[in-house]
């Protein structure tokens, strides 16, 4: 059995999931902090 398709699939699944987690966390942080800042500036 050729090993490379399995190695590539494992690395692709890992990096896609990790990047998805980090991007989701970053976007939720940015939007939540922007909302809190906009409410702070509101008179």
């Amino acid at each position: 059995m050729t090993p490379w398709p399995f190695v590539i699939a494992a690395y692709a699944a890992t990096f896609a999931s990790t990047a998805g987690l980090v991007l989701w966390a970053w976007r939720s942080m940015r939007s939540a902090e922007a909302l809190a800042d906009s409410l702070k500036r509101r008179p």
Partner: protein
Amino acid sequence: MHGYANPARFLKLARPATGWFLGLGLALLFAGVIGGLFVTPPDYLQGETVLILYVHVPAAWLGMGGWAGIAAASLAQIVWRHPLAAVAGRALAPAGATFAAICLATGSIWGRPTWGTWWEWDGRLTSMLILFFLYLGYIALASAERERGGDGRMAALFGLVGAVNLPIIHYSVLWWRTLHQGQSISVTGGSSIAPELLWPLPLTLLGFSFLFGAAVLMRMRAELAIAKAEARLRRSASE
């Protein structure tokens, strides 16, 4: 720990730490992956499939480490009523669930060429799958509690009870000798993996750990910002 019970004090530390964690995580991961994929020799028995080690083992450790963090946060919430403990628990859960899922997926992919099967109801695999479902249960419970304005004590109790699964995962390869290999690396007993194959593993482990930490810090910052915005909206509605 109580010194950082104040969210403002915590945020003062978390804001610069987020960028550092992201940068260090990416740099260490890059070094570990390049070393693992292009420098290490193939294993005498498994050939190149052994390269899955550098992503599978960190994912397993972080999947378990995430729940250990939830259990510690739950204890801090129940015993000391630490104000950031529930926030930390809710922030740890998605990151831990992601790494538990990565561990299951990469283990399954590794199992096909090595064992000849994608899945087996073996002690280690089954207890890891249970951990993944525990994460999903914790996320659902903590979200429901937060939406109803609860203090998160139910989720904290669930976090503590769920920690029972951690020693089961750890000792599963000793209690039930089935398909999954026994422990290869231990803190006290060293490693049975050849040093020329082992050295990239600490790099990828640290790299993924920093990225895990960055994701948790970002989720905690998001939760605190949402709480602040909700408090402001409540105040302006009552005026």
